[in-house]
C-alpha cells in the first residue's frame, strides 16, 4: 500500500511537471474552465432573480448543492483522465502495454495524469460554498459531513467513469452515452433532488448515486427537514454510497478486462 502510494506520488509529480511545461496553455485553460463554470452559476442566479425561490429552496441552499457537486466533479475529473480516455488505449492497442506491467490496471489508469486545469471548476465550487456558508449553522459534525459527502460524490463520479471505460471493451463508438450521467449528473445535482419526478430521483439515488451523495448530506448540513420525508439519519449515512458504488464498478471493470482481446495492431 505504502509502495503504491509512493509510486502514485511519483507518477503525479511527473504528470504535473509535464503539464507545467506548457504554462501559458495551462493557465489559459484553467482560467477558461473558471470563466465558463462561473457563467453557468450566473445563469442560476438569474433564475432566482426572476422566480425568487425554487419550490421552497433559497439561492444559498441551492448554492450548497451546486458547490458540492462542482468540487467533487472537479476532483474526479482531475484524477480520472486515464479512464475517460480509455477507449483510445483500446482502439490503438496501447492497452496491451498496461497489461504487461506488474501493477493493477485500475491503478495505472488512475496514475496516468492529474489534470491540473480542472482547478478552474474547483475554484468555482469553493466560491459557491463560500456563498452558501452564510446560510448554514456550522458545527464540527456538519463540516465533517460536507467533506465526506464531497469525497463520496467524487468516488461515485469515478465509478461512472470506470463503467464508461469498461464499456469500451464492447464498443468505442457510443461513449457519449455516459456524458448523460457524468455531465448530466453535475447539471441535475446543482438543484435539490426533491424538485425532480420520482422515477428520475430513483435513477440518481440507486442506479447512479450522485443525487444520493449530494442531496441527502446537503439536507443534513442545512439542518432542514427533507421534503421527501426521509428520516434525519439518511444524510449522515448517504456518504457510504459513493465508495460502495466505486467498489462495485471496479468489480464490473475486472470482468471487462478478462474478456479483452487486443486489436493486434
Amino acid at each position, binding site marked *: 500500500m505504502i509502495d503504491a502510494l509512493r509510486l502514485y506520488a511519483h507518477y503525479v509529480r511527473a504528470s504535473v511537471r509535464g503539464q507545467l511545461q506548457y504554462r*501559458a*496553455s495551462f493557465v*489559459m*485553460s484553467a*482560467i*477558461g474552465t473558471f*470563466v*465558463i463554470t462561473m*457563467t*453557468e452559476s450566473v*445563469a442560476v442566479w*438569474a*433564475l432566482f*432573480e*426572476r*422566480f*425568487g*425561490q*425554487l*419550490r*421552497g429552496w433559497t439561492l444559498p441552499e441551492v448554492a450548497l448543492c451546486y458547490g458540492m457537486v462542482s468540487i467533487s466533479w472537479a476532483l474526479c475529473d482531475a484524477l480520472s483522465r486515464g479512464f475517460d480516455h480509455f477507449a483510445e488505449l483500446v482502439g490503438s492497442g496501447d492497452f496491451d502495454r498496461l497489461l504487461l506491467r506488474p501493477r493493477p490496471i485500475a491503478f495505472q489508469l488512475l496514475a496516468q495524469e492529474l489534470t491540473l486545469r480542472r482547478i478552474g471548476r474547483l475554484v468555482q465550487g469553493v466560491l459557491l460554498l463560500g456563498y452558501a456558508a452564510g446560510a448554514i449553522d456550522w458545527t464540527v459534525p456538519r463540516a465533517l459531513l460536507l467533506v465526506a459527502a464531497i469525497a463520496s460524490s467524487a468516488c461515485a463520479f469515478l465509478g461512472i467513469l470506470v463503467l464508461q471505460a469498461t464499456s469500451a471493451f464492447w*464498443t468505442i*463508438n*457510443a*461513449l*457519449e*452515452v455516459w*456524458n*448523460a450521467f457524468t*455531465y*448530466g449528473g453535475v*447539471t*441535475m445535482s446543482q*438543484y435539490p433532488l426533491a*424538485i*425532480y*419526478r420520482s422515477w*428520475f430521483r430513483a435513477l440518481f439515488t440507486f442506479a447512479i448515486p450522485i443525487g444520493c451523495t449530494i442531496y441527502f448530506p446537503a439536507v443534513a448540513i442545512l439542518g432542514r427537514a427533507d421534503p421527501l420525508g426521509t428520516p434525519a439519519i439518511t444524510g449522515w449515512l448517504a456518504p457510504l454510497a459513493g465508495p460502495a458504488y466505486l467498489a462495485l464498478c471496479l468489480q464490473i471493470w475486472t470482468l471487462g478486462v478478462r474478456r479483452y482481446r487486443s486489436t493486434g495492431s
Partner: protein
Amino acid sequence: MTPYLAIIGARFRMLLQYRVAALAGVWTQVFFGLVLVMVYEAFYRSARASAQPIAFAQLASYVWLGQALFAMVPWNVDSELRAMVKTGAVAYELCRPVDLYGLWFARAVAQRTAPLVMRALPLAVFAAVILPALGLSGWRLTAPPSLAAGAAFAAALVCAVALACAMSTLINIVLLWTIAADGVVILWTTAVSLGSGLTIPLPLLPDGAQAVLRWLPFAGVFDLPFRLYTGALPAGALASVLARQLGWTVALVLLGRRLLARGLRRIVVQGG
C-alpha cells in the same frame, strides 16, 4: 461555386459516417432536455406563471429546439483544422486552387449541418411524439401556433445556419494565431453559450441583459428563430430578425476574410 459544393458534399458524407456516435449524442441531449424541462417547471411552479415573459409550454418547446439544434451553435472550433495548424499540415490547405476562406466556410457548413440531419429529427420525434405518449404532454415540443410562425421560423433558421457558419469560420481563422488562440476560443465559447440562449433561454435573463444580447450576433443563431417558432416573437418581427442575422453574417464574413488575409501574410508553418 462547384468546388465549394463538392467540398460541402464530401465533408457532409464523411460526417454522416458517425451514426452510432450520433445516436449516443441523441440520448445525451434527450437526457439534458428532460433535466432542463424539470428544473424550469419547478421554477415556474415556484412563482406566478402569468408574471413570466414566456409561457412554460413555449419555454419547453424552446428547450427542445435547443437540444435538437445544439450542433448548429458555433461554440467549438474545427478540431481537424486545429490539428492541421499544429502539425503544419495547414500548408496543404494553402496550396489548394480555391479561395481559402470559401474552403473553410464550406467545411463549416458541413460541420454545422451534418449533425443536424442525424440528431435533430430523432430529438424532435422524441419531444413531440414520444413525450406525450408517455403522459408528459406538458413537457412536449408543440407545433408553431400558426402557419406564419412556422414559415418565419424556417426562414430565420436558414439565415441562422449562414450566420453560424460565418461565426464558425471566424473562430477557426483565429487558430492561425496559435499562441493567443486558446484564450480567445474560451472567451468565444462563453460568449456564444450565454448570448445564444444555450446556457439559459434568453427570455429568462434579467431584462437589462436581454436588451443588450438581443442585438449581438449570438442571439441570431438560436434565440431569435426559437422565439419566432414559439410565437413569443410575432411572425411580423421576421424582417427585423432577418436584417440582424444577415447584417451580422456580412460583417463577420468581411472580418473573417480580413483576418485570414492578415494571418496568411505572417504565417510560419510549423514542423518540417
